[in-house]
Each structure stands twice: as structure tokens, then as C-alpha cells.
């Protein structure tokens, strides 16, 4: 598919050019001198592992973030994207990964936001035109949704389509799609792909971000790969093989580390039977053994995080039962789960894992604070000693235990998160995307730590969107789809393809 492009386009300046873009956030360099050139009428896939900097780059193109260094030009003219409005005015439309659909408005109001048909400079909204135009956009795109519907009543996939309709309502020169298929069903996906084909034919430049290999090879003309905030390679899609693409993303050949241990011989640590949370997790059965690392793979929104949160009692389940080392396990809250030795390490380090305002030491001792209480008073010396000990054990690089955790790099922050939970010496540990946004060195250290935990007898569950990581670290891999367990396979027998098949097969079933 796709190599065709009119010759005249090649002679013109790229419709969107981001050159040498650098962006820092407190504690991390998200982008380091990245250059990306997008031409009219092409579908340009941007690939990379989680934390590679794709979404940050797209937010810079959309005017949401300002770059710390670098230049942006549109059709050859250097521009400064002060805010999202400026980008939109230049014809750059974005469908963000975190949906921006407003749940308190109806479909038409969302699609036409900012460009509501009106007279007198916006003082007289033309509601009839609003709904007519919005419906026209939906019809043109072949999306079967009534423009009058309240967004609150739409499914996740329908909201995604509304978001796409909003981006296409004007006449975009560049359309950025950040993980647009993550919540779509098969039908909606087909619709989206047809739509992309038509837009491309009309000369719209499309930047497409996805984790799904099949989509990349089916849709894109060119591919750019980012890794750890740096540009790795750009080239025609036809010049890549699947394996080459993975190598570019991961930065090494994926070595397979398979363990032969017979899992069935290990003692059962946690059993889950029929665990359900309406709309997220559907009657899940799972057994986790002491001494094993169980991987939990699946697409975004498959219910992996939700399942882990149910086990850790961060959310309430609607049905199901669990046992912990043979004893019924029904924690009433996170505190109780922790006391029973079950901990959940969140994927969202900054929002949920750490308290950024506190020091490294305060973060490490936080969940076990009451254990340092002697007669009602805390032993500050013991707290500091424990924190220092765990910092050393995990190799946290910080000036002192009193350093604010917000000043640490992403990898070191993640080690603080691990220290915080490992200091409780848990029996069951649920790790959600434990290496997201950390550099390669720290990633390897964290992988070793995970293995060591299991070897020491803990039961470890690792949720990861990076299939190479799952294959390398885990003993068995469970794949979730649509809130259910689609299958459990020994890591020795699994390949990326077989895991993806499981993740998609179930999704296809549910749509039909």
C-alpha cells in the first residue's frame, strides 16, 4: 500500500516541520533534539515504546506544550505555536490520546467547539446550523451518531469517533492521531481506516501514533522511530521489516530469556475467582504462584490496571472471591491489603505513585509509617535509616534522603517507588508498567530486581504494554481483552504475534 505521491509535492517544503525540538520536564528530558518532517498527502507513523516521547512531540505540534529549544515551520514558514488555538488556526488538528471530549456537552457542541456557527462575532449562535453542520460532518465521515446525543451517553469508542469528527470538522492540513484505535471496535476501526485513506487522497498530512504493528504496515507511507526522547530513524514503510522496526524501537535485538521451572510445582499465593467490576473486569479467574513472575498483557483499556486495582482493594469489586495462601482474602481497603502483604505499584508514577512535594525518605516510609510508631511517637532515626538502606539497596541516586523526590530523574523516581513498596516486604506484588518512561540502564536494573523478588519467593504480577519486556521477564503470560482473560501461555511458548493474536481475537469476538 501507499508509496504513491505526486512528484510536485516532493519539491515543496514539508507541510509541517519540527526541527531539533527539545523539551524538559522537571526531572526528565522528554525530547532531545528531535526532528520530524511531515509532507502533504502522506501517512506518517511515529513509533516508539511508552515514554519514548511521541505524545510530548505531538503536544508540541498541537501547541499544547512549548518546546524549550527548536523550530517549527508550517509549509515553509517558521511559526510560534503559542497555544492550541494558534495551531488550529494553522490547520493542525489533533486527536489526543487522553480524550478531550467534553462529557457535559452534546455531540454537535463538541464537534463544532471553537468554530460554532454564529453571527455578530459569536454573539448570536446559530443552533440550527450548529446541529446541521455537525451532522453533516458525521455523515461525511460515515459515523452513525446523532449530533443531538449527550456525550455522557456515548460509549468510549463513540466518544473517540466524536473526537475524530471534531478534528476533521474544519479543513485540516495536518491531522495528528495519537493512539486513535485504542478504544475502537472492529467496525469503527474499519471506518477510521477508510477515512484516513480519503483524507490522504485529499492531500491532508496524517501523523499516526500507534503501538499496533499491523496498522503501521497497512496504513503508513513513512515511519519515524523515537527512543528515550531521541530520533532513531525515519524511512519509507516498505524499507522496514517487522523485526527491524522492533529493533529500532527497543534499541537491541530482543533476547529471549525463558525459564524452565515448572510453575505448577510452586505454591499458590493468590487465587482469583470470578472477579468482576462492571464495565471493566469481567469474571476473571487467575492463579498467581509464589516465586513466579506472571505477565499481564493486553491492549489499552483491556482491564489490566483495573484488575490489579481490584486485587489491591484500590477499587471495590462487584463480584468474585479471592484467597491468599489458601486463606480467604477480602480486604476492605488499600491499607488492609497492604497489611496482608499485597501491594499495587501504580503505572502513574507522578500522580499516584509518589507524593512529589515530599522528600525521598518520606516517600519511601509512607505506606509503612505506622510501623515506626513507638508509643504513639515516630522514631525519626529509624525512619531515616530504613529509607537510606532501601535507597542503597535499589541504587537510588539522590544527594540525601531529604532531597525532594520531584528533583530526581524518571528512573530514580521509579526506584523510589519500588523502594517504597519493597520496604514493606510484600508477599504479592502487582507492578503496573514498572519501566514506563525510564532510561535503558534503569530499565535493566528494574528487570533484575523483579526477577530477584520472585526468586526470593514473592508472587509478582507485571502489567506491561511492551511485549518484549513481558517475554523477557515473565514465566507465564496472561493476555486480557475486553475485561476477560483471553488466554494464559508459558513465556517459553509465546511470541509477540501469538500474544497479539490473543489480545485481538477476543476483541473481534466481542464486537461480533
Amino acid at each position, binding site marked *: 500500500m501507499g508509496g504513491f505521491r505526486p512528484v510536485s509535492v516532493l519539491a515543496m517544503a514539508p507541510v509541517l516541520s519540527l526541527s531539533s525540538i527539545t523539551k524538559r520536564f522537571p526531572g526528565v528530558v522528554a525530547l532531545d533534539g528531535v526532528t520530524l518532517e511531515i509532507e502533504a498527502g502522506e501517512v506518517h507513523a511515529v513509533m516508539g515504546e511508552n515514554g519514548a516521547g511521541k505524545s510530548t512531540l505531538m503536544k508540541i505540534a498541537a501547541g499544547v506544550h512549548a518546546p524549550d529549544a527548536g523550530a517549527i515551520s508550517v509549509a515553509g514558514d517558521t511559526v510560534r505555536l503559542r497555544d492550541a488555538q494558534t495551531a488550529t488556526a494553522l490547520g493542525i488538528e489533533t486527536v489526543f490520546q487522553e480524550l478531550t471530549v467534553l462529557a457535559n456537552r452534546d455531540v454537535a457542541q463538541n464537534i463544532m467547539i471553537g468554530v460554532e456557527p454564529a453571527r455578530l462575532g459569536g454573539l448570536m449562535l446559530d443552533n440550527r446550523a450548529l446541529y446541521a453542520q455537525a451532522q453533516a460532518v458525521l455523515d461525511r465521515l460515515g459515523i452513525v451518531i446523532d449530533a443531538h446525543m449527550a456525550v455522557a451517553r456515548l460509549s468510549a469508542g463513540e466518544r473517540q469517533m466524536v473526537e475524530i469528527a471534531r478534528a476533521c470538522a474544519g479543513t485540516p492540513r495536518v491531522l495528528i492521531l495519537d493512539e486513535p484505535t485504542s478504544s475502537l471496535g472492529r467496525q469503527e476501526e474499519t471506518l477510521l481506516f477508510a477515512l484516513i485513506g480519503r483524507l490522504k487522497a485529499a492531500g491532508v498530512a496524517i501523523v499516526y501514533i500507534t503501538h499496533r504493528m499491523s496498522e503501521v504496515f497497512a496504513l503508513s507511507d513513512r515511519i519515524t522511530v523515537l527512543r528515550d526522547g531521541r530520533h532513531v530513524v525515519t524511512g519509507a514503510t516498505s524499507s522496514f521489516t517487522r523485526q527491524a522496526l522492533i529493533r529500532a524501537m527497543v534499541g537491541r535485538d530482543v533476547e529471549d530469556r525463558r525459564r524452565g521451572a515448572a510453575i505448577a510445582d510452586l505454591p499458590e499465593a493468590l487465587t482469583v475467582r470470578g472477579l468482576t467490576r462492571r464495565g471493566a473486569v469481567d469474571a476473571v479467574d487467575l492463579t498467581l504462584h509464589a516465586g513466579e513472575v506472571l505477565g499481564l498483557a493486553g491492549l489499552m483499556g483491556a482491564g489490566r490496571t483495573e484488575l490489579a486495582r481490584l486485587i489491591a482493594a484500590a477499587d471495590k469489586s462487584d463480584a468474585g472471591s479471592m484467597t491468599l495462601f489458601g486463606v480467604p482474602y477480602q480486604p476492605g481497603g*488499600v491499607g488492609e491489603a497492604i497489611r496482608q502483604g499485597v501491594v499495587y505499584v*501504580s503505572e502513574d508514577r507522578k500522580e*499516584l505513585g509518589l507524593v512529589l512535594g*515530599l522528600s525521598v525518605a518520606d516517600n519511601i516510609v509512607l505506606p509503612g509509617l505506622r510501623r515506626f510508631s513507638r508509643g*504513639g511517637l515516630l522514631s*525519626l532515626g529509624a525512619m531515616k535509616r530504613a529509607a537510606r538502606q532501601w535507597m542503597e539497596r535499589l541504587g537510588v541516586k539522590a544527594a540525601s534522603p531529604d532531597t525532594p523526590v520531584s528533583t530526581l530523574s524518571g528512573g530514580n523516581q521509579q526506584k523510589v517507588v519500588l523502594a517504597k513498596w519493597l520496604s514493606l516486604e510484600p508477599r504479592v506484588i502487582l507492578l503496573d508498567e514498572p519501566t514506563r518512561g525510564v532510561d535503558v540502564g534503569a530499565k535493566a536494573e528494574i528487570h533484575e530486581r523483579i526477577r530477584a523478588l520472585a526468586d526470593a519467593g514473592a508472587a509478582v504480577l507485571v502489567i506491561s504494554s511492551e511485549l518484549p519486556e513481558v517475554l523477557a521477564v515473565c514465566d507465564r503470560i496472561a493476555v486480557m481483552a475486553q475485561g476477560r482473560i483471553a488466554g494464559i501461555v508459558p513465556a517459553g511458548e509465546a511470541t509477540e504475534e501469538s500474544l497479539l493474536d490473543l489480545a485481538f481475537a477476543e476483541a473481534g469476538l466481542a464486537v461480533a
Partner: protein
Amino acid sequence: MNADADAMDGGRTRRAARLLRDLLPYLGLILLVAYFSLASDFFFNARNFERLVTDSATLILVALGMTLVILVAEIDLSVGAVVALLSVILAQAMAAGLPWPVAVLLTVLAAMAIGTLNGVITVIGQIPSFIVTLGMMAIATGLAFIFTGAISVPILDETFLDLFYSVSLLGVPVPLMIVVVAFAALVVMLGRTAFGRELFAIGANIEAARLSGIAVRRNKIAVFAVMGLLVGVGAVLSASRLGSGAPGSSPSLTLDAIAAVIIGGASLFGGRASMVRTLLGALLIAVLNNGMVLLNVNVDSQFIVKGLIILLAVVLERLASAGGR
């Protein structure tokens, strides 16, 4: 990395603002004391200082409680009205013939009940605390006037009045002693108990705190209950100082207490606060109140002065943390 960012543009202003913010309660207090000492012959003497603290005992106690509330990212707008209501309850309980210790106990228990109620509605009902406590303010004010028919209820029990106002133990007036004890207890609680330490985490990132196994809701309700306790004791001291239960007393107590906490450099978004600095902030307000009376400054313009001081404090806070958001 962070040092780099600091060294770059704005770093100097930010450091200056941070320094100024941290020094504000100290500097402000010293400057005010110096100014009033020069401007008034009656200000700088031990007798006046003792009276200043004794008179402000209620404010200090309430401000210390407000520190906890703001630390967990909540607010209590009802304290002024509740103190007035409690002083009325206390006076009427004594007028009805209850012995003063029973009346005091009753008052403090009522205060804790009101505080706990604020906490429960805020936390369990998931309603912003400014609305809950605004409602409580209306309720308390209304009840205080209904109970009294808008007339102050005199307190005639000499023992009670003496104990809280003129008698001193070891040369220290009783209100001052209560303030010292409460302050010490709160400093220990905040710095040296698991409960206190957890409050910082709750205020800075409530979801992370919950996922760390902290009983967020219970702790927040406890904060409102402690606030109630301090408000109750404050109300007893206020009633003993005025010698009556007055429904319209302490009109500016709520603002003064919030001002003290803000001058003390607490973050209005929660997670950062200090008892020591709130105490300084409260003393600063107390000196301002006392000095302006001595200088015969129009009482009304105090509102403007205090408003401007809070303004200065929040602007400094903003400059100090600029870029961090």
C-alpha cells in the same frame, strides 16, 4: 537538571521570592513590633505583650487548627460563627445553673461534634468544604441569635471568670498556658506521629496517599474533629474574656485565622504548612490588631490592611513556586 533550570531565567526572582516568603512571618512581626514601639508609648512593655497574647488566645488556637485543615487541602469558614454560638451555649449552660466545669465540658463536646459533622459531610458527602462550612456558618449564626434573642448572655460565675482571665499559675496566665500546651502538642503531633506525617501526604496528593494505604477519609474527619476541639477551647477562652456569651462576637476571627496560616507560608492547595510559622502569623495579626487599637486607627480599615497582607503572601507564594506548576 533542576539546578540548571533554577540558574536559567527567573531563577533569581524565584529564589528571592522564596526567601521573602520564608522570612515573611519573622520579618513582618519584627517590622510591626518596631513600628508600633516607635509610634506608641504604650506598645513596647511586658504588660502589653502579655495582654496581647492572652487576648489573642482564641485566634491562636483557631489558627493552629486551621493549619491542619488547610494542610489537608480543605477550609473551614464557619469558625467565627461557631465560636460565637459556643460562647452563647456556655453562658446559657451556666445561667441555667450548671457548674462551670460541666458547662465547659459540654461546650467543648458540642464544638467537637460540629467539627466532626463538618468533616463527615465534606468527606463522606464529597462536597467542597467551603460550601459545607459556609452552610454551617449560616446555621451557627442563626442559632446563636435565636438562642439569645440577639442579647448577650452575661456570665456571673466568678470562679470561671477568674480562672481563665486573672488567675495565673506559676506567674503564667491560664490562656497563655493553654496556648503553649496546645501548640506543643500540635507540633509533636504533626512532626512526630504517623497521623501527622500522613496529613502532609494527603494534602499533597490525596490519591497517592490512598493508594499507599492511608485511611484518607478517617484522617480528614479527624482533622475536622481536632479543629472542633481547638475551636471549643477557643470559645471558652473568648467567653471568659468577654464575660458573656455574645451572638455577634468575633466577626473577623475566620479571616484572621486564615490570614495567619497564609502568612505562615502554607500552600493553599494543601501539603505544606507549619505550626511554628502559623504561630508567628497569628502573632503578627495579634500585634496588628493590638497596635492599631493603640494608635487609634479606624478599626474598619484593618480589613483592608489584612486583605493586602494576604494578597502579598499569596503573590510571594506564586512567585516562589513559579515554573513548578
